[in-house]
């Protein structure tokens, strides 16, 4: 029973008459309002049942409360992502955490944040990329081998993050095959590095991200060899985004 209805029934007789009852009702209504705000404040901590209407139907919490819930779990709302989708990810965080450190963990979080066309490459021979955006690992994640990358004498085959490959096999990086705004801006690059820091492995060193702006880059596409078509000296352009937040470097035109 609402306090606005309850209080006029329990007051002294003076508060049950016309003016007194109005005062009791008004006071009760103020309590009802506080009570509802307290209840909504409590519910705001829940991702999918974050408010309740007068009929008892649940709805999402206020958007800013949901953003806080995401932040509490080291998650980010994607560009234009709905409350329902973000709330489901908060609720599902338990099942996502187990993929932290894996290719899927990194790539999926980048995808949610709006990045696209990325490959995660490990120096010792494997790469991964996403083939869909359903959020289901079985259908979205694909692996490939980097053992067919351009080989050089004296070092094992595989992707080359830098000239230390072979000595530092536990290195990895990201390679974007297409440029995008969030790879050009300082803010977008900072978010990229932040996601990698949160979801990347603790057992391998992240060297940075390469964005192919034009042409090709050494070792990518994976099967390209010296003399293949498309390897035109002087026409290739790559932006490297360092992991430490220092300015990106463009190599080539």
């Amino acid at each position, binding site marked *: 029973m609402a306090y606005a209805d309850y209080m006029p029934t*329990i*007051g002294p007789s003076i508060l049950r008459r016309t003016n007194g009852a109005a005062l009791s009702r008004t006071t*009760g209504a103020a309590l009802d309002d506080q009570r509802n705000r307290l209840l909504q404040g409590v519910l705001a901590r829940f991702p999918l049942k974050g408010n309740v209407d007068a009929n008892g139907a649940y709805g999402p919490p206020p958007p800013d409360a949901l953003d806080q819930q995401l932040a509490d779990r080291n998650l980010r709302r994607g560009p234009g992502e709905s409350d329902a989708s973000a709330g489901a990810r908060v609720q599902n965080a338990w*099942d996502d955490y187990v993929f932290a450190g*894996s290719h899927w963990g*990194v790539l999926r979080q980048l995808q949610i944040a709006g990045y696209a066309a990325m490959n995660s490459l490990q120096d010792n021979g494997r790469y991964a990329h996403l083939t869909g955006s359903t959020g289901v690992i079985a259908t979205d994640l694909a692996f490939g081998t980097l053992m067919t990358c351009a080989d050089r004498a004296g070092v094992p085959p595989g992707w080359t993050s830098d000239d230390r490959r072979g000595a530092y096999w536990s290195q990895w990086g990201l390679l974007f095959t297409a440029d995008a705004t969030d790879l050009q801006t300082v803010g977008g690059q900072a978010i990229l590095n932040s996601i990698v820091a949160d979801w990347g492995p603790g057992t*391998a060193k992240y060297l940075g991200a390469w964005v192919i702006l034009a042409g090709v880059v050494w070792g990518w596409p994976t099967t390209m060899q010296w003399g293949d078509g498309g390897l035109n000296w002087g026409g290739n352009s790559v932006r490297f985004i360092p992991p430490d937040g220092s300015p990106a470097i463009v190599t080539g035109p």
Partner: protein
Amino acid sequence: MTTIADIVPTFTDDAIKAKLLGYLQDSETPVTDWNSGAFIRSLMVQWQQVLITYAGVPNPDPQLRQRIVAGGLPLLPASPTAEASSWLTLVADQWFKTTRNFSLLGAQVAGTFTVQNVTLTCDGSHGPYSVTPGSHIVRSPVTGNRYISNGSGTIPTSGSVTIAFRSEYQQDSSNGFNYSDGAGTLTDLSANPLPGVTASNVAPSFSAVSTSPSPSVGAGTMTVGGATPAAPTAYDVQILTDGQVTAATFQYRANGGPWIGPNTTSASFAIPSGPTLTFVNDGLGANPSFIHGDRYYFTSPGTPITTAGVDPETDAALLLRILGRWPNLDAIPDEKHRAWAKQASPLVTRVRVSQDSTRPGYYVVTIAGKANPLAGGVQTAVQLYIDQRESVGAISDVELATVYSVVMTGTVYVPAAKMAAVQAAAAARWNDYVNGTDIGGIIRVVVLEQFLRDAGATNVASLSPLEVALGATFVAVPSDIIASLTWVAV
């Protein structure tokens, strides 16, 4: 230090009254008592009753302050009220993605429904009748329990139809809602009489076949059909030796009586005066399909209950499942691979992880089951499961353990009268020991000697080999010691 009890104390009516009087005295109003009906006294009574709904006992309205705390601290001991339970339900669902055993859209605390198959039969002078979900009720004259049609169908003239009926209320045995009505008891259609129609929840000839462990280690299946026994009977079937159909052997028993066997698995094995068992190999190619130790069991007759209602999940049980959401904190890579391999397939029971000595960052994950080698499909499933979770920088190669047959030789002296029993007992324990040895483990002959003597052997001689140290990727399988040892009756 302020505690939760300080923040959200449970006030009594008198305690609130004392607090209000205290506030008045703080404002220099010394009076603590007024005549009945006095304005201040009446006003205080009104506010006492308002405030007690926030924090007091008894509780005419939800206790808001306590609820705020319960809504944030699931492990906080709460009073056993539906209100507190509903908050726990919400916290479990929203924060831990763990749903209590009922839909949140239903009652806040409730069990699940029981579903039974009911056969409706119509005579030749009436019908046909249509039954739709919710259209008809059948009742047990024994318990008074009512069931509502949950499926649909047509009762033909001079014929019958079997339709699922759902219990009227959810199972909640502690509050008197117990829907375990036996076969032949749901006969009363008086709530919606249909001329010429009778009802009964008829039990099928046999129950579904269950296994222990569940799922069974062997991937083969056993089904049951044919004749029913003269009296209700519970059957157990236990696999004795590994193999495919016609090679694997089994024993069976009725109502917990003596085991009968060994028998050979086949596509049609008739139990005398009872049902016929049908063994079928795994369709995906697992070999052997039947593994010793697996047990299959069923009853005759079965039960018309297709879904047994479950009592409401208690808060304690739900809390336990919430805590189970926390992942294993063991970060040792080897242990992760072991866990992943077993999560990928229940057929994987043994895992050995080693770092590749020539390829940096590579792991070799060798897997084995109770029956080896495991099927190629299992290897593929484990490889995919690990790939999807592997840390960037690591790569695992999942390999099937190489089978090594452990052949023991030697001489065993046994009293003639006990020969068969000693052989069977010793072989069973030896098989379990060898099958339980880890990949790359060590098989020791002293264990066999112990088993033989425990079983009743009077002496042993020249048992060999003394020790079998398996290679790092090898898994042992026992050979038949009854055949390989020399048995001397004394």
